[in-house]
């Protein structure tokens, strides 16, 4: 990544910002307009104050006669404050709307994309969705209105001052436009540094998450000192980077301070010297009211620019955050284009990710992704309940497409047939099952009951194929809620029946609240075996044509394993069944077996002596 963003990169970011701004709606317009009105009222306020002082000091008008002006002045300040308040309300409203829309669309992207994100630094992704997105709000609530003010108010103020004295107006007009130029120069450096810092922050967050995950291990191995040092070093690194950003960022504000001071001092000296008769020409003929008006306006001309500078880091933060979001999405293996789409801030309700990505998948023609193709074919064929799976000219890659996991010219799981899927750890059994379930991109043909999976109604596909994953999802709620995850309509009787078959019932019997026992997020509160039995129970609640089970008896002891396998086999009667397993006992239950070996799919005898199966370790 180059230190200074290219023109196209900046243009792309501007487009992104504009797209995001669109979801801000009317509130965003109010955010910009209201402070602008408050700014214009300032001219009247300054005139009123200057006139008031002139009357009192130069014309000796008694205080009683000036009371209305004084109160009017107070009223004017209050009105401006009220406008500011309304503007800020609108800004916050708009920003939260924009962020919520972006978050929802990012999250739906995470959920729907079939790329394996489980290996991505999950902490960093969470930080992108929560913290990086929050970085955007300063841009909309502060920087955007400030920019508009900076573009319009100095000019308006100069015009107002020009009515009084042309030279002062000229002084404003000449110094004010220089400021953005200087700031842009300084800003470029700051931007590169800020991005650097955003990366460091994200890395730091990843480092923390990583070390915290294993803090017990580190403690047991006596690594307290070295790891604390490492954390300190990472923090110091971040400090150095941040300080570099800030030094440059502050330089731009120093430039502004310089001009603002120059303006105030210049006006004071110019008008003052004019009064004293040192300057020939117009200045000498100014009234006190006019002179004071110029002086009062002097700091105000630069104020919008200073405001913009003060919020310049909001812009930088927002842009860094956008790049960081885009980068993380890309690093997660999501398609770069869909990543960009994802950060456009369209809400999930207005956007259909499948359909959107389908167009791209078709257009690029590179990946044939069944799960993505679904969108094209609403409510098309739905294969019968007694269907099998067939693949042809099938190739499966790792998500980064660096390594080919599996290539199979033709293979099928006949309707109602049962088989085991064997192979060394890391060889690609899980990936294969996920591809068969239509949840993972591959090249080639996949048909369910003769119907290409891509042409099926997605809801039908999900109904016909049940996949038991190695990492079950648990929602915070009761055991019953977690079982209904697989079948929302299931009766309590059905739940208990499924629990019985998976061996979960014995666990439930020991829990005082049974099905109502609370399950924490991530399955907290369940033992490894209980979690597995709960996930298994879900399988019994579905009614699929094809049953794909990934290590169904992991974490189970031999006796439970045997009982569960009996129940599963009974359940799978009349259905097609493929079981990825390391367990010999499980493989022995199944009439046939397939083995993934050296990138191919081979028939295997389940009870093949183990030593023969894979003596040497292949590069996995």
């Amino acid at each position, binding site marked *: 990544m180059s230190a200074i963003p290219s023109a196209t990169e900046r243009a792309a970011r501007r487009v992104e910002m504009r797209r995001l701004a669109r979801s801000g709606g009317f509130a965003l317009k109010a955010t910009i307009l209201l402070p602008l009105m408050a700014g214009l009222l300032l001219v009247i306020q300054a005139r009123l104050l200057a006139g008031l002082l002139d009357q009192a000091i130069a014309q000796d008008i008694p205080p009683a006669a000036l009371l209305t002006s004084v109160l009017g002045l107070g009223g004017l300040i209050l009105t401006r*404050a009220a406008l500011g308040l309304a503007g800020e309300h609108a800004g916050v409203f708009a920003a939260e709307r924009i962020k919520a829309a972006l978050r929802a669309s990012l999250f739906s992207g995470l959920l729907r994309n079939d790329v394996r*994100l489980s290996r991505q630094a999950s902490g960093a992704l969470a930080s992108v969705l929560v913290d990086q997105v929050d970085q955007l709000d300063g841009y909309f609530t502060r920087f955007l209105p400030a920019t508009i003010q900076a573009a319009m108010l100095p000019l308006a103020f100069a015009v107002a001052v020009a009515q009084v004295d042309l030279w002062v107006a000229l002084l404003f007009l000449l110094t004010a436009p220089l400021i953005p130029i200087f700031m842009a120069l300084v800003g470029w450096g700051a931007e590169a540094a800020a991005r650097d810092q955003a990366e460091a922050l994200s890395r730091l967050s990843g480092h923390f998450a990583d070390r915290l995950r294993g803090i*017990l291990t580190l403690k047991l191995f006596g690594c307290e000192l070295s790891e604390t040092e490492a954390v300190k070093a990472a923090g110091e690194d971040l400090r150095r980077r941040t300080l570099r950003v800030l030094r440059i960022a502050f330089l731009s504000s120093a430039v502004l301070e310089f001009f603002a001071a120059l303006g105030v001092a210049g006006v004071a000296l110019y008008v003052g010297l004019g009064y004293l008769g040192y300057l020939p020409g117009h200045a000498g003929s100014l009234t006190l009211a006019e002179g004071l008006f110029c002086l009062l306006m002097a700091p105000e001309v630069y104020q919008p620019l200073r405001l913009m500078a003060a919020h310049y880091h909001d812009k930088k933060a927002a842009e860094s955050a956008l790049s960081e979001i885009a980068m993380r999405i890309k690093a997660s293996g999501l398609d770069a284009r869909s990543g960009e789409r994802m950060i456009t801030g369209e809400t999930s309700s207005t956007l259909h990710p499948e359909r959107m990505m389908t167009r791209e998948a078709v257009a690029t023609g590179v990946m044939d992704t069944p799960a993505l193709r679904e969108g094209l074919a609403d409510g098309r064929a739905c294969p019968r309940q007694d269907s099998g799976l067939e693949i042809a000219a099938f190739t499966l890659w790792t998500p980064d497409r660096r390594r080919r996991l599996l290539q199979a010219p033709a293979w099928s799981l006949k309707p109602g047939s049962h088989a085991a899927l064997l*192979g060394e750890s890391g060889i690609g059994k899980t990936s294969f099952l996920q591809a068969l379930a239509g949840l993972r991109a591959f090249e080639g043909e996949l048909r369910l009951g003769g119907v290409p999976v891509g042409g099926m109604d997605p809801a039908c596909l999900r109904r016909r194929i049940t996949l038991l994953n190695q990492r079950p*999802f648990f929602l915070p709620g009761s055991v019953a809620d977690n079982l209904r995850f*697989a079948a929302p309509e299931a009766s309590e009787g059905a739940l208990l029946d499924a629990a019985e078959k998976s061996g979960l019932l014995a666990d439930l019997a020991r829990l005082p609240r049974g099905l109502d026992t609370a399950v924490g997020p991530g399955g907290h509160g369940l033992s490894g075996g209980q979690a597995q039995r709960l996930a298994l129970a879900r399988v019994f609640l579905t009614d699929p044509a094809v049953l794909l089970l990934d290590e169904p008896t992991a974490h189970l002891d031999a006796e439970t394993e045997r009982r569960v396998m009996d129940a599963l086999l009974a359940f799978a009667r009349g259905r097609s069944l493929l079981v990825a397993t390391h367990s010999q006992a499980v493989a022995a239950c199944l009439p046939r077996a397939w083995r993934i070996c050296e990138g191919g799919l081979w028939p295997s005898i389940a009870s093949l002596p183990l030593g023969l199966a894979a003596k040497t370790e292949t590069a996995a």
Partner: protein
Amino acid sequence: MNLLVLLGPLYRQQAGRLMLALMLGLVTLFAGVALLGISGWFLTAAAMTTAGLAFNLFGPSSLIRGLSLLRILARYGEKVAGHDATLALLSTLRSAVFTRLFARIPLRQTASATGAPTSHADLMSRLTADIDQLDSLFVIGVSPLVNGAFAALLLGTVLALALPTALLPVLALLSLGIFGVPLALVLLARGPARQVVRHAATMRGMVIEAVESGDDLRAFDQTMLAQHRFEALNLTLAKGRRRLARTGAFAAFALQALTAAALVCVLLNGLEALSSDRLSGPVLVGLLLATMASFEAVSAILRGVARFGLAAASAERLAALLETPCAIEAEAHPVMLPPSLDIELIDVSFAYAPDRPALQALSLKIAQGETVALTGPSGSGKSTLFQLLLRLRDPDSGTVSLGGIDLTWADPEEIHATVALLEQDAPVFMGSIRDNLLIGNPHAGDGALWEMLDAVQLSATIAALPDRLDAFVGETGSTLSAGQARRLCLARTLLSRAEILLLDEPTASLDPALEEAILFALPRLARGRTLIVATHAPTSRLQGFDRHLRLSAKGGLESA
């Protein structure tokens, strides 16, 4: 108050830098107020002067120029110094938190309702986000407050000299602006801020969950369920943040209203004084402008105060985390472990909760150097037994002893050095393969590392990687499969110099051939050390072990 307890000592460490930043801030403020005041006075005085030549021009004009320059330089210096100090502060805070957390591991697990950490996601979110929330608390919180007080003092002095009648009301308004409004803001923002921090943490957890279990959501066609849950939280979070921001906006409005009142007050009193010749015109203008400038200093307070609420909520959570008690109590005067390290459990019972018993009246003896295969149905307490042997938990009743020394008498660090554990969910750390292995034994040479990788049948894989031992493995072991990650962790544990090795399902997620090979090799790899392996592997693969223990479902010993 937690905020002070947490940050106080760290502030003292950086006192020099912080003071420098404060002083520079005061100079900036002084220069700004003086610049406007003197400009107004000068301009008016010049307009009132009839005899131009008699006016002392040099003094005011050079003052104006000098103050401008001073203001610019002081402002820049203040910002750099303040942020430098803050960042140094934060860096120290991070490692201080880490150190204190280390001392409390194993954390006592309690229900989430008490605010104690419950999950990894929660822990992670606390440390990183909460510490970041304390970011720039000094620069935008503390420093403006001091500046505001100084501005009040400055203006009060000038008013006392020039316009005593306005002194009391203006000071009252100013102090209301400096203390009253921010205080109200802090109090009002506290609730919403705490909620926002909590919701954000929940959201982080939700994202991690969706990432890690996304397959299951897609497989059961339940992505909409997760999406709905997320969007509900999303709206709640947005609502909370809106409420928080509105509180700040109202405070800003209140401050501007106070400015208006103070200005009106100075004007009314000043006009009165002017008409009775107690005050000259130029001084009145100077006073007015100075009043306006000092209120600008006050408005900076609000920007910081809006963050006080969030920072306080974060500090509270951090403090709660750092005060979570350790699950065990270390003996103040520990007894050294003897050279002979026989393991003995007498009548040990342990339950995670009254309705979740894990071990019941378990007694067993394992001699030093014995290799033991430990089996039993899931939930029979194999992992619990390991936790007790490391004294990560204390039994509810009964004693666990090493070489005849009750573990509660021993130094936990010595126990950790003596007993090594391969956890069921042992993590692969972000870093190189070598980093990961050296955690087990920092003094191991490359030869020893390769030898151990060979023993767990990983050497071919690692040798094929471009950077070999220096190959980077990610957070969840991104370039390694589950089985490879497992073996890497096994190698790390075997490298340890501990006398007792506890391996909890070392062959989980390995295929049978590898499982058989590794289980066969393990007794030899123990090299005379005590080895206890908890496993679900069939008995036929456990022939190489000296003894075979089987825990029953009730958490007792079965004869095997």
